[in-house]
């Protein structure tokens, strides 16, 4: 089986005979489509877990849930270094988020804190393939995307603690992680808000190459968002424009099946999100989001397509969050058997097993990584805790790139030139 055995590519869509579209779809290995047709896993079975509404709660497509024993048919392509990098990044995401929960309940963090536990394979599988210049646009569940993109754990933790040393100087918080240096451009708390911004980032990449003649510019943008977002207007508007202008972007749906307490199946008339790509001329791919190697395999091709200038790809990763929507969510509507099912498919233990059985690393080597990461997270907490809070003067900083935007004061000078302004005591 190829690395793509777990994905589905829309085969003979009613409009797929359009030669243009067929050409686009063909950039995924043809074997994979063939595999899917003869594979028993490709049968569109719905799982047996029935919700109160009588519809299937999980397992939107069978091939992502029935292949539990086998992880990553990508064995032939992944190297030891790559596998360990994925493992380290996923373990960092998990360890960091577990620490966040503890710190939240100790009152070190505030407001809404949304944790990523369970979904690590998606962030890791995509972001570890990006270059430093490539962009990532995230949602309010953004800590782990930031970590995968290379933002230091110290900076993310300090931001969560509301400290001046945070990646946004304590001004953004849990839902608004930004790092220009790492090309992490949000951190958006509103559903669907990040998709147009990401599309704009991809637009700028193409513009720089084609209009500003920066010929080496082939930067790719990856936009992460959830299943709930896919019923939102911005999603469809941007699928259209991204395809229309062939923008270098990958739309990654982290379908964790629930939008707070709203089951994806109760909210969505056509729950197979990947199918919404082809009507716009965008390949749609469905991948097991609990299997990092499968995500990684799909991501490789989708990112390469974007970099080659072949346009956007829509990837639906079926995943699951192991915790409530936020740390304040009582999480009463998800059934225990559903949670148990997914927790048994923990992407980190699965990768661990794979790495060991394929002799990519020994158990003790992995333990060394785990120990190192736990220390990184401990260190991040210590750093954040001992960092100073933002000074009072910072309240009025960064509202404008040019603080003259605060206007002119009664003395005829710009208000920002008032000494009281920088001391945070000015009336503005």
């Amino acid at each position, binding site marked *: 089986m190829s690395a793509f055995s777990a994905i589905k590519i829309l085969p003979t869509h009613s409009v797929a005979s359009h030669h243009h579209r067929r050409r686009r779809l063909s950039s995924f290995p043809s074997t994979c489509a063939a595999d899917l047709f003869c594979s028993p896993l490709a049968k569109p079975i719905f799982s047996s877990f029935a919700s109160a509404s009588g519809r299937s709660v999980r397992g939107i497509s069978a091939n992502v849930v029935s292949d539990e024993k086998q992880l990553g048919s990508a064995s032939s392509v992944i190297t030891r270094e790559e596998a360990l990098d994925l493992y380290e990044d996923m373990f960092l995401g998990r360890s960091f988020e577990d620490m966040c929960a503890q710190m939240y309940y100790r009152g070190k963090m505030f407001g809404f804190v949304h944790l990523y536990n369970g979904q690590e394979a998606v962030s890791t599988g995509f972001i570890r393939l990006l270059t430093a210049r490539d962009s990532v646009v995230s949602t309010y569940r953004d800590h782990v995307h930031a970590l995968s993109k290379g933002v230091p754990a110290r900076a993310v933790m300090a931001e969560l603690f509301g400290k001046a040393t945070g990646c946004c100087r304590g001004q953004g918080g849990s839902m608004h992680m930004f790092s220009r240096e790492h090309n992490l451009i949000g951190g958006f708390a509103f559903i669907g808000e990040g998709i147009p911004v990401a599309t704009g980032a991809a637009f700028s990449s193409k513009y720089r190459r084609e209009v500003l003649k920066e010929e080496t510019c082939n930067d790719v943008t990856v936009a992460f968002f959830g299943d709930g977002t896919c019923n939102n207007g911005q999603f469809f508007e941007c699928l259209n424009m991204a395809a229309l202008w062939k923008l270098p972007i990958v739309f990654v749906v982290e379908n964790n099946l629930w939008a707070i307490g709203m089951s994806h199946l109760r909210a969505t008339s056509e729950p197979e999100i990947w199918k919404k790509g082809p009507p716009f001329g965008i390949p749609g791919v469905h991948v097991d989001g609990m299997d990092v190697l499968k995500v990684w395999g799909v991501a490789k091709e989708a990112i390469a397509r974007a970099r080659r200038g072949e346009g956007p790809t829509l990837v639906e990763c079926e995943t699951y969050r192991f915790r409530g929507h936020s740390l304040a969510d009582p999480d009463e509507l998800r059934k225990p058997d559903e949670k148990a099912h997914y927790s048994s498919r923990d992407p980190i233990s699965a990768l661990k097993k794979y790495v060991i059985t394929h002799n990519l690393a020994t158990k003790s080597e992995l333990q060394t990584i785990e120990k190192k990461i736990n220390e990184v997270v401990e260190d991040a907490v210590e750093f954040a805790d001992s960092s100073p809070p933002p000074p009072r003067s910072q*309240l009025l900083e960064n509202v404008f790139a040019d603080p003259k935007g605060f206007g002119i004061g009664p003395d005829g000078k710009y208000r920002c030139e008032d000494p009281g302004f920088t001391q945070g005591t000015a009336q503005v």
Partner: protein
Amino acid sequence: MGCGASRLEPGEDIPPGLLPFRRRLQELKRSRTEESRRRRRERKDSIVSTTELLRPEERDADDFETTEEEISRAVAEKMTVRDALNSAIDEEMAADPKVFLMGEEVGEYQGAYKVSRGLLDKYGPERVRDTPITEAGFTGIGVGAAYYGLKPVVEFMTFNFSMQAIDQIINSAAKSNYMSGGQISVPIVFRGPNGAAAGVAAQHSHCYAAWYASCPGLKVLSPYSSEDARGMLKAAIRDPDPVIFLENEILYGESFPVSADVLDSNFCLPIGKAMIEREGKHVTITAFSKMVGYALKAAEILSKDGISAEIINLRSIRPLDRDTINASVRKTNRLVTVEEGFPQHGVGAEICAVVVEESFEYLDAPVERIAGADVPMPYAPNLERLAVPQVEDIVRAAKRACYRSVPMAAAA
């Protein structure tokens, strides 16, 4: 968010209509004790670690159990704003089948802030309708339904999300009666928490009072107490025009005394009438929503310094009760306005204009305007505190208006 209340037991539904007080008491008692038991039971089944998911108030189980006496004393005299809103929607849905509730997580989740608790069980999914996350879409659908005489109550999980739907609110709802020459009225209520909560940073802390109040065709209400919440929400649902109903997350759990009149199902407050919460003679302080509580606290402090402050709870931002404000200023000759929103073009600016236009010659001091800082809400708690009005800011402003000496003011 998410206070995680349980539903009523099957077969124990309270009949629609007026909520008899005793039954409410029993319901609350039952749900509180069962909730704590059930939650602990559920934590055990949870796939995640159990202890850390417990909220601080749950960790110490003994503290969480409330004695019967405590509950009955609390409920007999008081009602939370959350229950006031819940009962108002409940009663209006019972009284008029055209009323329905629509929004994200209003049904099975019982409301993101549990305001719609129990309504799904009572009225079913056709009338308590969970929507996908599509503000522009479901707001427009609500408006269209209102064109045809239904009375939708559209909940925004927070008013911040109403920005996604502002075209439908302003262009489709507010202007339709006018554009159609009076043929199409839009009896719809848009409601949800507005303004700053705690620690939720720039995108979740915006106050929309001034935005919506600047638009003709809308009525904009903002309750403070449980009485306000009940009386004004019922008035809003019965009103034939689009009403923006701005609640406050922090106030949901706050209890206020309520009289038997307020609990009557016919209770309703007039739209456009402010309420004098505390009479005084030296300075008028206007406020709405959470800031009324702050103003009352400030008045308490001021009284110790011999300053008698008159506190006006605006209740209605549009129409604005110009008469009550002007009458008060003509009596006290001084005005302090308080709001959580941004200062420029804010509610305080409008009130100031109203007083300058009608009572200029009565003013003995410049108008003092207290507002949120002119910055997006910062996340760090020390900066956040600086960015929203505090009781001491109100005290200082009132003293300045009364020409008392005051220490250096804090930022904005």
